[in-house]
């Protein structure tokens, strides 16, 4: 079959698909399921605009006065992920999420180096996977995903107006011996539980969330979305966790191979450093 014939046949064969149109019922169902566009009255838009301007102004003043970013005082009252870290960033240890590192707890090397970080904490953990966080000299928060060598630095503003922020799965290459890949994220204080939905099978529901989570995702079931719930079981946030996400990480779950022995935490790139232990 020549190239021309290939093309002729292909175009002829696909021709019906080129003119298919959805019917009105299908369009109506889409419109009914989709969220309505944001309806903004001029008064509300104006008020929000001023509030944002005021917050931005406060942030700018703080930057000029303090030489480092500080969360605006109004921010702490807003229940979003930024609020979870606001008190800690202001130096209030009692307001910090999670728990401090224990003396001999394994953490990434740079979490023990005061030139880079201070006040390292564990925000959440599951089955040995830990979400670490520490303050950086520039007033931002640094997260390390499971001691895998993946560090992410954020100013608190990156989390404003969101009850949930999925950080990602770190740098693990394979599902672990249980077929799990850790999925790390942070939440607003009001979030009490999170749920990971799948293309196939039941969701993974985790209670007792306090500022962050580690979900043991099963790549073979097609992780789809993380939902966040408050104490009244009302959904307060959601984020896609597949390769279509336009906010946060795009994750191609098909790249994780079959279950394989887990790389010990002390052998992960972020922990091993230039002189890895002999067991690595």
């Amino acid at each position: 079959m020549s190239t021309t014939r290939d093309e002729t046949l292909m175009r002829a064969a696909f021709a019906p698909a080129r003119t298919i149109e959805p019917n009105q019922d299908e369009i109506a169902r889409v419109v009914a399921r989709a969220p309505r566009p944001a309806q903004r009255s001029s008064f509300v838009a104006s008020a929000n605009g001023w509030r944002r301007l005021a917050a931005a102004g406060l942030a700018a003043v703080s930057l000029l006065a303090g030489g480092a970013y500080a969360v605006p005082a109004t921010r702490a009252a807003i229940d979003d992920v930024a609020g979870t870290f606001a008190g800690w960033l202001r130096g209030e240890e009692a307001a910090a999420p999670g728990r401090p590192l224990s003396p001999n707890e394994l953490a990434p090397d740079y979490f023990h180096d005061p030139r880079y970080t201070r006040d390292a904490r564990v925000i959440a953990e599951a089955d040995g996977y830990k979400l670490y966080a520490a303050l950086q000299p520039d007033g931002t928060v640094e997260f390390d995903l499971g001691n895998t060598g993946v560090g992410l630095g954020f100013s608190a503003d990156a989390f404003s107006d969101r009850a949930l922020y999925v950080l990602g799965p770190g740098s693990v290459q394979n599902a672990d011996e249980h077929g799990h890949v850790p999925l790390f994220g942070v939440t607003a204080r009001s979030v009490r539980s999170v749920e990971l939905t799948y293309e196939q099978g039941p969701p993974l529901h985790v209670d007792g969330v306090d500022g962050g989570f580690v979900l043991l995702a099963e790549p073979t079931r097609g992780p789809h979305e993380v939902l966040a719930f408050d104490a009244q079981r009302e959904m307060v946030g959601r984020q896609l966790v597949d390769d279509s996400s336009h906010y946060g990480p795009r994750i191609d779950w098909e790249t994780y191979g079959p279950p394989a022995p887990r790389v010990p935490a002390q052998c992960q790139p972020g922990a091993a450093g230039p002189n890895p232990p002999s067991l690595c």
Partner: protein
Amino acid sequence: MDPEAERSQPSSVAAEVRRYRAGDTGAAEVLARRACTLALRTAAAILRSGEEASDVAQDVAVDALRSLAKLRDPDAFDAWVHRITVRHALRAIRRRGRARDAETPLALLSEAAHPAAPEGPDRDMMLAARDVLAAALAELPPKQRLALALRYVHDLSDAEIAAALGCRPGSVHALLSRGRAALRGDAQLAELALAISGG
């Protein structure tokens, strides 16, 4: 929306995106129709079941509208819809792989709904070719199927297909070549192609 119109309206689509973001409910239906149409054409070309293709198209359109605030460039609406379609179509293929049930081949389904040619030997030949192609396509890996559909249904370039599939343009070229070569190897299809092209 004919295929030519599909490629000639990006600025008006971007305008609808801006209207939607500004709170104009009328834009919702326009964007829903466009997303649904693009997705339905791709899905119908590779999924073979009309019901399944319709479900995928609706899910794609809902996803597209739901997260429209995150689309940075309103001119990229179509490209974005193609990318969402790829994700949903791959998921549907995986689901079908797990539970195969009776399927209506695309060729028969779409021909029944959209008779393209008058009755006669040419139409019979074309129908036969489409039927055979639908079966042959089902044997190709999902990404090859999608690459072929995006090229021959939407006339996308290698770069545009790469953006939809999330791979490099070079990989698209390879996907298309392998897909065409596999179909070329189908003896029945080759015979029909020869007849259609008058060879």
